[in-house]
Structures are given as C-alpha cells and as structure tokens.
C-alpha cells in the first residue's frame, strides 16, 4: 500500500500527474480499506454472538415457610455445540429407540435429522431464543427465564 502511495508521489514529483490527480488516486486507493474497516465495525457494533445459555428460575413463596428459591444456570454455548455433535455419534438403532421413546412422551423429534452440517445453524437459532414462563397460584409464584447472553 505504501509502495503505491510512493509511486503516486513520485509521479507527482516527476510532473507526470497533477496534484489533483494524485489526490484522487490516493483517495481511490484508500477507499477499499475504509469500506472494509466500516464493515468490520458494523459487525462489531451489531448484536454480539452470545456465549452462554442462561436458565433463571425465581420462585417466591407467598404464604408458606419454605422461602424463595433461586436457580441460576449458565451453560456455555460451546457445550451445546459439543452436545449436538455427540448426538451425531449415536448409532442408528439407538437413535430409532430414542426417537420412539420421545414420540411416546409426546416429543415428535427426529434425532437422526441432526447432522454436523446444520449444527451451526441450529445453535445460531438459539441466539434469539427467549422463553419466559410465569406461574402464579395460591401460595407460590414461579418465574422461569431461558435466554442467551
């Protein structure tokens, strides 16, 4: 890059180009760098990639003697990725049995569809996941939050 600039300045000193032309050439030379750096800053300024999956359970006991209970779980997203990769290692007969068991429990999820190639996409979609559950009955009030941070 400096070499190009030097060449332009040399051409200017030799009188091959005018000062205006040299300025335009230098500006044109710097343009791709500026756009590249603006792209990088926009990525950095955008939503940062979450690192953790958080599960927060807040249970308030209104009338009993149990008192409030708080559960705070922070799992690295990397662990989820590795876990999904581990699911990819399950042999086919075991997968069929697991699928059948899950279907019997009311979860029609086909684990054989989890493949390494769509693994990243799967975890990326978890980034936008937020689950808020509020339950309130006579004695207790439970709040569950699942989100990525």
């Amino acid at each position, binding site marked *: 890059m400096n070499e190009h600039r030097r060449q332009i300045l040399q051409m200017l000193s030799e009188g091959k180009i005018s000062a205006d032309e040299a300025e335009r050439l230098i500006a044109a030379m710097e343009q791709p760098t500026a756009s590249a750096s603006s792209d990088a800053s926009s990525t950095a300024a955008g939503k940062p990639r979450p690192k953790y999956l958080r599960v927060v359970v807040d249970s308030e006991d209104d009338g009993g003697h149990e008192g409030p209970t708080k559960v705070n*779980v922070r799992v690295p997203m*990397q*662990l989820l990725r590795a876990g999904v990769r*581990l699911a990819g290692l399950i*042999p086919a007969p075991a997968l069929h049995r697991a699928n059948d068991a899950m279907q019997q429990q009311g979860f029609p999820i086909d684990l054989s569809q989890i493949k390494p190639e769509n693994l990243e996409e799967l975890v990326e979609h978890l980034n936008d996941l937020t689950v808020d559950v509020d339950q309130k009955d006579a004695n207790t009030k439970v709040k569950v939050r699942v989100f990525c941070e």
Partner: protein
Amino acid sequence: MIPFVAIISLRNQESRTFRLWIPLVLIWLLLLPLALLLSPFIFIACLFCRVNPFRGVAVMWQIMNALTDTNIEVEHRAAGMSFHIL
C-alpha cells in the same frame, strides 16, 4: 482450554459456607494413564457400537473443553449450593 478447577460452595441453614476447590488438573493427570490403558477397550467398544472412535474421542475432548465457565447456583432460604467450573 480444559477446565482447571471446580469450585463447589455449600451454604447451610446457619449461613455457614463451605467452599471446596477441586483441582481438576490433578484429576486429568491421574486419569490420563488410565485412559491410555483403557484406550484399546474403548476403541473396541466404539467399533462394536459402530461409532468412529476418533470422532468419539474428538467430541469428548470438545465437551471437556466446553465445560469451562459452566455455572450452576441454587439458592434457598435454608441452604444454597453453587458449582462453578473454571
């Protein structure tokens, strides 16, 4: 990076906190010869289950690395527990 230390904190009703630092590095060092000894059996077991043993080992390694920064806390009026892997 593999986890080095696990910290378990337990709090009882009298608000006494017991903190236990488990040096995982030492455990890994102790388990390494055992893993080497068992590796032929693990290899055969993987082949028997039709699992690529190298992929299996790679995934287990990734899981072990990913455990770093895992944090679990349970707080109750009577007791509390926290588990942190560093």
